[in-house]
């Protein structure tokens, strides 16, 4: 159990590096985890080459979901939208460094789900540019 709540997770939960909101932004998306009422919003700013320059999250969640959001956003700064779409469940689990059962997996993956939903929205407008 102490393994589960690795120092990294507790630390990022208590003092996140990427918490906030961005207005204006290029991507903003939010979603809920209906099982627990958690809510996460992610705001992203891009440069003219669709490279992520800033990314922050806001909302409510458990240590796993918020640490996951913080680590995810750290990992996408400097990436292009296309690169960002490649992020997988395994990447998230690697960052968190823990194994999760099916219920907590939903917590860990909520930020990625929100990010992807936002990005695919943008992806569409980009491709129709």
């Amino acid at each position, binding site marked *: *159990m102490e393994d589960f709540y690795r120092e990294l997770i507790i630390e990022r939960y208590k003092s996140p590096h990427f918490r906030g909101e961005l207005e204006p932004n290029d991507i903003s998306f939010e979603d809920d985890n209906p099982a627990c009422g958690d809510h996460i919003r992610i705001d992203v700013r891009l440069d003219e080459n669709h490279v992520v320059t800033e990314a922050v999250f806001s909302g409510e969640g458990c240590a796993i979901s918020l640490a996951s959001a913080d680590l995810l956003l750290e990992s996408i700064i400097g990436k292009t939208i296309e690169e960002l779409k490649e992020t997988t469940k395994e990447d998230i689990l690697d960052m968190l460094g823990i194994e999760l059962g099916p219920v907590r997996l939903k917590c860990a993956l909520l930020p990625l789900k929100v990010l992807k939903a936002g990005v695919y929205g943008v992806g569409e407008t980009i491709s129709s540019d």
Partner: protein
Amino acid sequence: MTGNSNTRFDVQQVRGDFPVLAREIRPGIPLTYLDSAATSQKPETVIQAMSTYYQENNANIHRGIHKLAEEATLAYETAREKIARFINAPAADQLIFTRNTTESINLVAYSWGRKYLSAGDRILLTEMEHHSNLIPWQLIAGELDLVLDFIPVTSEGNLDLDVYHDLLKKNPKLVALTHMSNVLGTINPLKEIIRNAKSVGAITLVDGAQSVPHFPVDIANLEVDFYAFSAHKMCGPTGIGALYGRKDLLENMPPFLGGGEMIKRVELRSFKANDIPHKFEAGTPAIAEAVGFGAAVDYLLEIGMDRIEEHEKLLTNYTLEKLLDVPDLTVLGPPAEEKGGVVAFYIKDIHAHDVAQILDGDGIAVRAGHHCAQPLHTKFNLPATTRASMYLYNTIEDIDRFIAGLQKVRDIFK
């Protein structure tokens, strides 16, 4: 109705009746089950009754002439009688088998609601309802253009009865509320609430999912019109629940679902509905589950509902007292005297999921989330809470392990 009370309540003996309580949740870690408000564990007698039914009596009911069909029908109808008697319903045919509390409430919404409600009519609910006594009314209100009103919950976790009296002046057609909150533990003053509702001519429906399992419920005394509950929260199987209804109401209501069993006579373009309760039991019902439900009632009666209530009170008092010593922890709902065996709480800056996860590491099963009462959590400005809920098989040692687990939670997040 409340069972024998001359022998002592022996919790260790009770635990011996529940096979799952003997298991280790992980090697060397016993199970501390504090999630009975979600679903209770099942005693050996219930599991056995269902097995025996399948091994010896299984047949479809009501239609067959053969011996097995007769035995199965008898088993099913005997269960109905036991359950009706358990809640002191006037007659067994006023007890309809459904899948669960949720389906019981939906049955009333769709059958009674569609026939008797029309645009502009008001339904009075409360802010502490489980989604199962909220969404059916939202759906039917959308369909029929009804107005929903809500009795507010005070900051102490009780219904605001002054506002209730004001809302009654708007002449609601229905007052529907829970007997006991599955989050706050509040036991509502039903007798008074029902009497007031009747005085303005409203029909009353009570969600008994958290009450029937935990203390004696007397339908005749409450004079309630509809009362819904689930077997799985009272030592019975999943897949079966019950709806009690006032006889004249049930007799005048149209069927809920159509099919076999609910008819008396069928022609190509019309049918004549069966008598109650069969009118509301379309298709092959959950027969083995009904048998298990009956066995659950037998079991609870053997222990005695008074003694179960008393035991849970003791555990709840003890829990609330111990929780006072956990820093930064706030319990929702009224004080111990007004509360059933449900303790929902939050710890400052620690999410309910993390609390539950760390407790699980020590084999302690609690629930985290909004417990299907999201509007109530919104009201208290909480995304989620952790809930420990007790039943007849819980012990003081269970509570001690739970409290020690919370200490560990705080250590990890310090």
